[in-house]
């Protein structure tokens, strides 16, 4: 394979190209689409998706068919808890983050325990957990005022903080750096790739595989909870299904970002690009003047095209 094809099959390059292409299409369809402030708003939405996808990435890289379908319910849980805790006051932001993140971290750990110690397939465990968390939310949110976002949280998410860029984007950048550091500079990161690649071998080199896997699901929960806090900052208040729309996009962003669903490969920068590409695609579709079904066809079709570019599994005859 020569350099050029190698470059073209690199997920990072592909995602970047998709982003540029989508921006060009958007700008052509509606001038102003690729304007600076508009791009920042798009990035804000991407950041929300990107943060859930961070947890999703860890779970997927960790292997054993890792996937977390309960992130949606956990975002809702985080948002509802955070809304109630901060109840519209700035002083409540820190406790809100702690409560939301803490609760979803625990839910995630339960997912992890089910997956590792009871050996329930992740798809099934997290799907089942979704039902439980949603049910819990309905019980929880009844009668309790579903709270409001604190003003500073809302301006952190929606208004420029530094250099014309909202705080949420700085936070996302921080998450990106933290993910890089975690995956490339800590024993935990090395262990995640190792166990994703070959669990048995990881055990035989002394890595506490089950503990780590449990922790990964916990971290995915934590990221979902924090995303919930961000979401309530974005929408102002919370409701029980606010997180549902992020579940499958978080998986798709991971795949577009070049992380194989088989585990043991990929990195978070690709996922960040994947989240941006996916958000852009949805935006471009909204600006298209067409019936809903037409947008659906294009959305599905573009996903398939992306699959064609780099979501393909290995050939049997090599």
């Amino acid at each position, binding site marked *: 394979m020569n350099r050029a094809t190698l470059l073209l099959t690199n997920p990072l390059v592909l995602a970047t190209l998709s982003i540029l292409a989508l921006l060009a299409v958007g700008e052509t369809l509606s001038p102003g689409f690729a304007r600076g402030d508009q791009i920042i708003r798009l990035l804000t939405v991407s950041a929300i998706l990107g943060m859930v996808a961070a947890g999703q990435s860890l779970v997927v890289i960790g292997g054993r068919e890792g996937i977390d379908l309960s992130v949606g319910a956990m975002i809702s849980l985080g948002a509802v808890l955070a809304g109630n805790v901060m109840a519209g006051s700035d002083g409540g932001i820190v406790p809100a983050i702690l409560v939301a993140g803490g609760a979803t971290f625990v839910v995630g750990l339960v997912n992890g325990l089910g997956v590792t110690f009871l050996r329930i397939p992740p798809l099934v465990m997290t799907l089942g957990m979704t039902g439980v968390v949603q049910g819990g939310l309905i019980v929880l949110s009844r009668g309790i005022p579903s709270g409001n976002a604190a003003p500073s949280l809302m301006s952190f998410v929606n208004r420029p903080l530094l250099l014309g860029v909202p705080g949420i984007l700085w936070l996302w950048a921080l998450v990106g750096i933290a993910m890089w550091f975690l995956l490339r500079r800590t024993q935990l990161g090395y262990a995640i790739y190792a166990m994703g690649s070959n669990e048995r071998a990881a055990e035989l080199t002394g890595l506490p595989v089950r503990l780590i896997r449990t922790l990964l699901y916990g971290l995915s929960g934590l990221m979902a909870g924090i995303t919930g806090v961000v979401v309530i900052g974005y929408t102002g208040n919370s409701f029980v299904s606010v997180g549902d729309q992020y579940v499958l996009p978080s998986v798709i962003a991971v795949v577009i970002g070049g992380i194989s669903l088989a585990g*043991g490969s990929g990195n978070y920068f690709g996922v960040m690009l994947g989240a941006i590409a996916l958000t852009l695609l949805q935006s471009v579709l909204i600006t298209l003047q067409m019936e809903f079904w037409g947008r659906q066809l294009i959305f599905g079709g573009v996903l398939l095209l992306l699959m064609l570019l780099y979501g393909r599994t290995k050939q049997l005859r090599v």
Partner: protein
Amino acid sequence: MSPVLEARNITKRFGAVTALSDGSLTVEPGEIHALLGANGCGKSTLSKVIAGTVAPNSGVLRFNGSDIAPRSPRDAEALGIALFYQELSLVPQLSVADNIFLGHERRTAAGFIDAKQLRHDTEALLQRFAGVAGDGFSADAPVSTLAPDQRQIVEILKVLARKPRLIIFDESTAALDRRQVEVFFDILRSLKADGVSSIFISHRMDEIFAICDRITVMRNGVTVTTLTTAETDRDTVVHAMVGELAVPQRFARNSAVAAEPRLVVSQLSSRRLDSVSFDARPGEILGLGGLQGQGQSAVLRSLFGAEPLTDGSVVLDGKTLTLRKPADAIRAGLAYVSGDRGRDAAFHGRSIFENIAAASLVKERRRLVWPNQLKQRFIDAAAALNTKYDGLDAPIGSLSGGNQQKIFISRWLATNSQVLLFDDPTKGIDLAAKADFFTLARGLADQGASIIFYASEDSELLSLCDRILVFNSGAIAAELTGDTLTAFHLTNAAYGKAA
């Protein structure tokens, strides 16, 4: 007589790796033809090209006088070619019978699977290995419940059930014990009598000289020569395989074994072990011998915390160890190298650096990883074994099997462990790599390490070990030292109760 198979100038590249640059092979009707060569020289790749599993980049294949280009294993099978896959082609979830006749199920008139016939045919085939196949080997047993040797037998029977004209056996004896190999050889001979040609790939020189008519030797993806067994000898073959490299045959025993034991193992018991007690000294290479599956691997894995113990104690340097998980053993200074590297060692798709680093990170409790602090150490460890690789950032898959195994040994050299547990580490690696390994093992012992070494090949134990514990049914049946370190005593002890 025209040859059954002619392969000429076959080339195959996997991305950047050239697996075959000139693979050629000619097999006569009714011949047992050995294909020999170091790890990674391309034997399996050539076999897979012939069997249609791998698409060659160029080259010519002729079968029974006409050009062929099998595009799938199905095509090859239709021609009468079958391959025993080195890594086996069994479906663990299906039963022995289902596996053997997969794709060849007899059907009733209505098109349903004829379960009765299937069972009947399977039992007829199993009959061939009756008495040597071990417990739990039946037509209905799921393959996932079988031991490695039993799986190899299923793969052999599966190949036979296809009634091919040419069979390639790619390391089909790797997990078989002596009695099983004998049965297999009988099968080979009867195939030969029926005019079926076989290509036999093995790293066991004795087997090749025992059964093969001719020997084709490959090196680095190129076929170097074809010899007639009757007209050649071991040394000639070895020279053809390794080129200029000399292979030391015996390794001087260490005279300076310390008197005080370092590792004292008493009364180890578990599902597979029955009160095993022994000790190991610094500077000593302690061998574990006996027929396969008598508890040798179980001892090593138990010592490493990878298999649960029901009873017993392990004392290292005067301290009693608690071995609940491998990390306990690693931090106490133990290391474990398995011969089944694909399953037990390789982080597929990850870099060589990551493959080496894992154990050091655990042993040294490094929470943070700064690659530059570790690189030199890893390069040194790999160099100690003459490992050939492109750089620490290359993926592990770019190396041949033998070189991969060297990396997995380097993984433990880098941790500077003092007690090394080797679980058939040379399985399926070539002679040159074995020689590198033996030299290294002896060197480590000389520097004061204790080595406990299990090998499925007796000759390896005899040439390397200072002392051998012979296992039978999970217990130590005999201890061989000094004058009793001979093939005769070893075989005797191994078969003591079993036969």
